[in-house]
Every structure is written in structure tokens, then in C-alpha cells.
């Protein structure tokens, strides 16, 4: 695989942004990296328009309709899909809600929490994406090529993965920097 300047798209789905923060923790190396890759759609692009890219990166599990849709769309438009962080790889902490119905999760969060003043029992939902019955890892919906677990993966691990891609290899995270949190 030879790529002049690979295009990368990344997206932040059901997660905390910590994986993208860990990416920023490559610090000065970011300037060098930005000279070698073309970042097309950054996490801000939770929208319809992922361009065709060599590498797609997903941070986060899939917990609502919009996130499911975005994962499918990115899969279609990238050659290599990376699941980045424990949420994308395993579903992560989001899966803790899977033991109860989504409706109950909403009702308790918006009506029954102690400081909520909501006498009419308004549940958010208008013009908002509906929750999936369960939060799921990315590979329950689409094929994943590279798994990078960790909560979050270390900056060096993330840098390693991008370096491998720039060398034209499909990265496989070595055991000494592979971490599960």
C-alpha cells in the first residue's frame, strides 16, 4: 500500500473525547504529523459528509441512531477502519446502561434525579437522535480492521499506529504498549 499523503477522518461518537485528547498528548510531534497526513473530517464532522479517505478512526461506542448511521457511513468511505479506545473496541462504560431499558434510563435521568424540577415529566427527544436499545461496540455494526484499546490509548500508542500507517503497514499494536483499562 503506497500512499502519498494519506487522508484521515476521525469521529467522536458515544465517548468522552479522551482518546482525541490523548492524541493531542503527542505534543510537538503533532506539527510534524500534520505535514504528513491530510486530516479531512475531524471529530467535529458528525455529519453526512465524510469524504473518501484511506483511514477512518472511531472513538466511542454506538449508543444512538445518529452514531450508528455515522459509523456505517465512515465504514463505506474508508479503506482501513480503526476502533480507537475501550468504548469503540468493547463498548466501554456506556454498556453499563444495557441492563435496563433505554426509556427507564431517560426517565430516571430527566425526571427522578434529585435536583431536577420537571413536574410535567418532559423527556428530551424532539429534534434529537433516539437512543438505541443498547450501547454497542463498533464491530457489532460494521467491520473493524484495527483495534487500539485503552482508556484512553497512550499518546505513544496512537503515534505508533499513525506511524505504521504512514509506512504503508496495517498496524498491529505490540504487546508492550497494548493496554486494557
Amino acid at each position, binding site marked *: 500500500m503506497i500512499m502519498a499523503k494519506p487522508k484521515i477522518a476521525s469521529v467522536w461518537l458515544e465517548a468522552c473525547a479522551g482518546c482525541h485528547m490523548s492524541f493531542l498528548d503527542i505534543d510537538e510531534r503533532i506539527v510534524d504529523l500534520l505535514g504528513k497526513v491530510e486530516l479531512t473530517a*475531524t471529530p467535529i464532522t458528525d455529519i453526512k459528509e465524510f469524504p473518501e479517505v484511506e483511514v477512518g478512526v472511531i472513538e466511542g461506542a454506538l449508543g444512538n441512531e445518529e452514531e450508528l448511521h455515522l459509523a456505517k457511513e465512515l465504514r463505506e468511505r474508508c479503506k482501513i477502519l480503526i476502533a480507537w479506545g475501550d468504548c469503540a473496541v468493547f463498548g466501554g462504560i456506556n454498556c453499563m446502561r444495557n441492563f435496563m431499558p433505554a426509556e427507564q434510563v431517560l426517565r430516571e435521568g430527566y425526571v427522578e434525579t434529585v435536583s431536577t424540577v420537571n413536574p410535567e415529566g418532559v423527556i428530551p427527544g424532539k429534534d434529537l437522535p433516539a437512543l438505541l436499545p443498547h450501547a454497542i461496540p463498533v464491530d457489532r455494526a460494521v467491520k473493524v480492521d484495527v483495534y487500539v484499546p485503552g482508556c484512553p490509548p497512550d499518546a505513544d500508542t496512537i503515534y505508533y499506529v499513525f506511524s505504521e500507517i504512514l509506512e504503508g503497514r496495517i498496524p498491529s499494536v505490540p504487546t508492550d504498549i497494548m493496554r486494557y483499562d
Partner: protein
Amino acid sequence: MENKKNTIVVNPITRIEGHGKITVDLADDGSVDNVRFHVTQYRGFEVFSKGRDFREMPVITPRICGICPVSHHLASAKACDAILGVTLPAPAAKLREVMHMGQFIQSHALSFFHLSSPDLLFGFDADPAVRNVAGLAKEYPELAVAGIGMRKYGQEIIKTLGGKKVHPWHSIPGGVNRSLRTEEKDSMLESLPAHKENLRKALELVKNYLAENAELAARFATLETSYLGLVKDGNLELYDGRIRLKSPRGRITDEFDDKDYCTYIGEHVEEWSYLKFPFYRPLGFPRGSYRVGPLGRLNACEDISTPEASSELAAFRKSTDDGIVHYTLYYHYARLIEILYSMERLEELLLDPDVLKSDLHITGDVTNREGVGVVEAPRGTLIHHYEVDEYGAIERANLIVATGHNNFAMNRGVEQVARDYITGPDVKEGALNRMEHVIRCYDPCLSCSTHAVGKMPLLLEIRNSEGELVRTVVKE
């Protein structure tokens, strides 16, 4: 969607502990009718924490936000301390504060240097391709390197104590799990002056910008609101203090213990956003809305306990007649003053012999069935509240996150900018970026990745009353 209206949807305006979008409804004559900032993600931490042992909460709750996980880590640990009914040994409390200062330095540096400074240096209407940290590195390399270095400095402090830069593990109920070593303390102290010097330069930059753009600063999403923040003896406080609310005219409306927050703060729910709207109960919603974060804190306090930040605060207050600053763009200025405070406070803590002591932990059992922990997160007051059974299993949890307090103000600010810059469906790019910058003032993490690593693409959809797509504008 109401009838006979066009709706402009700006999606995404994201990244405030979740994901968001802005919708602008236009009236028949093309004028702005209604503007809403929606938060579109919900994960349910309050609900799925039920049944967990409360001791797990300082590890579970930081996953709410990877930008300032330390805030959740500390608020949670404080709520757990309250359940144990213990008072921490001084070394433990001070080490928690060391980590907290590291967090303020890194999070505020990210906000200013990586995110907001490109808008200020290149202008709101500049080419989005250069209006980011890569453009910054090219045109202002010294500033970019200073910013990246300052963030790294804060992150290294967090990693030293907590093992990792994001989602560290250091605080435990009743204390902390690791001491600080002499050589680590020395290394933190050694590099501090260089970062302080860089910060002074950034402060000059912001002050000059605000002086040169005084008219914009006075107008941009300016809101006269109340302000909320922690204080200790009236001074700015970030780790542990009383909650104070100040009126738009600068009168102290109320001041109360953090454990009594629920008597004073309620949360309103709207069907169009997953983010709730906190308000001061005695005034009701929306009258009781207020702002938090750097501007809220500097307005709420009387003074700052460290010398250099105190004199900067005095200069900051001279920008208005009554010393209360309502200008939203001054969030950036306030943020830098808080970095200065964090650096000075960090130095005080590191020079305190307590931080090298090994008295780190008090054990205990469930003494109180309820615990409240409150800290100032970089973006504002953060409240954790747990109720447990006799064995310590969580029965109820309630979290009020920093960004929530600003929800009303963000909505009003975006609306105000929309009214100023939008007349009909033909919307200019600069107007979109200005609406985003309102959010950016309150919540740096919102678009960190955007300004940090590349372009800011935006999709603007204009829909008619049937919900059919009339026109699409893509900004790349």
C-alpha cells in the same frame, strides 16, 4: 418544526460533554425568529451508577469527560470522603490540589492556545484552512510552541501523580494513593518560571486584542447575568469552598455550603436538548439562570489569594465601571488570569513541606448515607451527589456538570449573534463561525480537535416548513 418558517440547522456544533447543533428558525420575512442550541447525546451516568460500590465512582465518573477528567475524579472523591465522614490528612488534600492545578493549566492552555487564539489572531472571517493550531504554528510559532508546552506541563503533573494524562487514578475515598517525590517536585518547580513567562506574553496579547477590538468585545454575545463560583474567605477557590452567587449588579445574592446545593439549585428540562438547565431556585427558571466558568468565578469572588493574579484581577475589573464584567469575550482574559493563579498556587503547594509527606489516607466505613462533592472544573462548578445503602451501594446519584450551568447563556448568546449577523437564508460563513465562537467562549473542549488538528467543516441546512431541504451550504 412550526409552520411557514425556514429553519437553518448548523450541525454539528459539538463537544460539550456531548454533541450539539444549532437551529435557527426564520420568520416569513427572513428575520431570525428562534434560535436553539441542542445537546444531542445522552449516556446516563446517573442511572447506570446505581448498585455500584461508591468507592468505584472516582474511577467511573471521569469517563464523562476526557478533557477535564480530573475534575470528576476530585468531585467524586470528595463526595466519597463525605460518605466516609472523614477529613483528609493535609498532605492528601494538598496533593489533590496539585493535580487540580495541573488540570487547570492544561485545560485552560488548550482552550486558549489551541482553540481560541486562532480566531483572535487571524480573525473570525479568516480562511478556516489557516484558522487553527497548524496555522498558528506557521504564523506564530513561538506562541504555538508555548501553548503546546504549557498544556504538556499540566498533563505531566497529572501523569506524575495519577499514572496517566487522561483518566488518571490518584484520589481514593479518604485520601490519595501516591505521594510526591522530591525529585518530581523539584522538576515541576524548575520549569514553572518559563511557563509563567509565556503566560504573561499571552496575557499581553489578549489585553491588546480586547483594547483594539473594544467595540466587538462590548457587543459580542454580552449578557447581563448572575455569576456562580466557589470562594474561600471571599477569594477565588478551585478545590474546596462555599458556593457564592452574585447578582448582575455585583451584590452577593447568596452564599451556601456545597452540601446544601439542592436547596438552592434546581435543573429545568427542555424537550429539545439532552442538557438540563440549572437555575437558582428562589428566582425560578429562567430568571434564576447564571453563568459559571472563568468569567463567573472572577465575578463571584472578591479577590485572588496570590499576588500576581490578584493585580491582574484588579486590571481586569477596570474594564467596567462597577467591576462586574459581562463581556463574553472576556472569558478568554479571565481564563488566562486563572492559569496565572494556578501556577502561583501550584508553586505555593510545591514549596509546602506537606506535599512530600506520606500521610495520605484515612480509612473508614459508610458513616453517612449521603455525600456531596463540589469542585470548580475549568469550565465551572461541578457537583457530585451520591446516596448509598448501608453497604455503600449507590442508590441514587445526581451530577450537575459545569457546562450545564451555562446552557441558558449559550442559548441566549447564540441567539444574539444570529440576530446580529443573519438576515434570511443567505448566511455568510463568518456568521457561522461567530455562533461557534460563542460556544467556544464557554466551552473550549467543544471544538478542541477542530482547531487543534485541521479544518472546521460545517454543514448548514436550510429547510422549509415541510422539513424539505431547500439549500445546503458546506463550509470546509
